[in-house]
């Protein structure tokens, strides 16, 4: 009896459970220690900004001039700004905005890029040529000056059309996403060009798969790995773009303290209240560094050429 269970167990070990694709990717991702750490930091920060304000209930705009420019202390864990507003509350709120901007604008960029890349790669010929020239043109646009120009010209209209907050958010997200679709487009196109020649696609065509189904079911899923890596890194650069814009004083309105905006306000008080700049700056750095490590880990995990 005892020996037969042992035999059973050994055979089970030899045959091994069937491995799912995602489990494999996750296992490979876990080999990259720093990527795992980055993911953990990101999770903590995202959950913190989402649920932090529920636990830490101080308002972001409680003005108290008797407590202005205080360093970290018991009453204000991360200190206060020049109007005595609590910095921890503002950083938590700012994190929500910054992370939301990063995710949304990257989503826009990836959707747009995938669309352009898929059309170019699938159709080929002159359509491909025109779309790729357009991509090249967008790559050589000076990003920040153009970002500034568009925000400058459309800011007031967008704020009038929607609420000031929503208007600024939509404008910034659309512009950042609209200037960042080129890399996903190129990646998707390149993947499509090589996938089109593969046997399984030929088989699908021979079976009479309609074009849309072919693209969505057979081509896109196989073209996604490099796009996922680019997208994860893109969230970081979108957060940086938003912070740069806010740091130049041209992002969100003053009552919406994003991390970049906090730095913008803090930069004239570096000598008396360095904590004001240090905390939001560290947050941006931490988030971007973690995202970059996660992207690095994803690259290792999704690269099918790498055998374990």
């Amino acid at each position, binding site marked *: 009896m005892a020996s037969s269970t042992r035999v059973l167990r050994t055979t089970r070990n030899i045959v091994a459970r069937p491995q799912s694709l995602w489990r494999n990717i996750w296992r490979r991702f876990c080999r990259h220690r720093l990527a795992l750490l980055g993911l953990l930091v990101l999770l903590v920060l995202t959950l913190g900004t989402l649920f932090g304000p529920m636990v830490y209930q101080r308002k972001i705009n409680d003005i108290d001039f008797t407590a202005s420019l205080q360093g970290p202390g018991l009453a204000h864990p991360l200190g206060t700004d020049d109007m005595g507003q609590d910095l921890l509350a503002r950083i938590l709120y700012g994190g929500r905005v910054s992370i939301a901007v990063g995710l949304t604008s990257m989503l826009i960029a990836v959707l747009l890029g995938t669309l352009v890349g898929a059309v170019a790669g699938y159709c080929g010929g002159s359509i491909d040529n025109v779309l790729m*020239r357009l991509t*090249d*043109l967008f*790559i*050589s*646009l*000076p*990003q*920040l*000056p*153009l970002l*500034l*120009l*568009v925000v*400058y*010209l*459309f800011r*007031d*209209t967008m704020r009038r059309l929607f609420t000031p907050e929503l208007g600024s958010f939509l404008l910034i997200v659309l512009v950042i996403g609209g200037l960042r679709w080129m890399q996903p487009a190129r990646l998707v196109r390149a993947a499509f060009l090589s996938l089109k020649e593969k046997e399984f696609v030929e088989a699908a065509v021979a079976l009479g798969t309609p074009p849309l189904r072919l693209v969505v079911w057979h081509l896109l899923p196989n073209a996604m790995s490099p796009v996922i890596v680019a997208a994860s890194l893109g969230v*970081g650069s979108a957060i*940086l*773009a938003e*912070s*740069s814009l806010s*740091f*130049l*004083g*041209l992002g969100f309105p003053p009552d919406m303290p994003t991390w*970049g905006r906090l*730095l913008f306000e*803090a*930069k004239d008080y*570096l*000598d008396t209240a*360095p904590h004001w*700049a240090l905390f939001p*700056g560290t947050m*941006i*750095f931490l988030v*971007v*560094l973690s995202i*970059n*490590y996660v992207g*690095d880990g994803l690259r290792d995990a999704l690269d099918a050429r790498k055998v374990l």
Partner: protein
Amino acid sequence: MSLYLLRRLLISAPVLLGISIVLFAILALAPGDPFGELALNPNIPPEVRLNLRQQFGLDDPLVLRYLRWLAAMLRGDWGYSFVSRMPVQLLIMQRLPTTLFVLGSAYVMALMIALPVGILSAVKPYSVFDQIATTLAFIGYSLPTFFTGLLFILVFSISLGWLPFIYSSTIEATGFAWVLEHLRQGAMPITVLGLFEAAALTRFVRASMLEVMPQDFVTTARAKGLRESRLIFKHALRNALIPVVTVVALQIPTIFTGAVITEQIFRVPGIGSLLIASIESTDTPVVMAITFVYAMLVILFNLIADVVYGFLDPRIAYN
């Protein structure tokens, strides 16, 4: 080589045209009459306003307005600044040398760091040096310039008091003292920008060298008994630099982002800080012109990258 350069020049003309169309389209789509501020001034009687509108051709068809605008831009007639009441091109020419000085020095510094560090890392991959260098490059790449800039001011200007944190364009010294003062005030902006670029470049140089080193022609050269230094610099590096140049050329638009921010932090009187100031004072002609200048700079640097290509791999130039 000159034929090749001419060809690249001809290819970049449509790109400049495309950029100008994008710029003009943004301006045309924008609400209001960005160029018509004068015409909208309520102090000006309606008939004068109508005259002005006609004179500026604000009611002409879009294509005509675009062609007129493009012709004026190409002729170097960029209009008058609303704020400083002087021709925009003069305003920009005053500022451009400073921007190019900071940008150029930062780039030289980045190359001087990235090349040796990247090569050393790739020659001995996964050594202690490589691991430290890669980690530092990763951190440097994730540190935004606006944060490093503030940190530099905090440490070197406020805590240590070594360097001035405001850039002055009028230095009252001559000769050696003038050069020294320029270096002292340029030190922080150049270092902030240079270190950021160096971090990105180091990663590319290392990755590219790592790909070249195990290739057959390198092994052959080693089998011939070449000295390791000659092998690295003469054979491997030259081939490894080709993809690096590609990436650098693609990165140029991003570099200007860092440059605008650095100029703003350290109050460097370049075109980046002029752009921000003009946006704050809604000085549309200047804003448009500076964006156009940045676009031209991107194309110029791409041309330089093409020349470097031709130098690194003569086959590219002859094909």
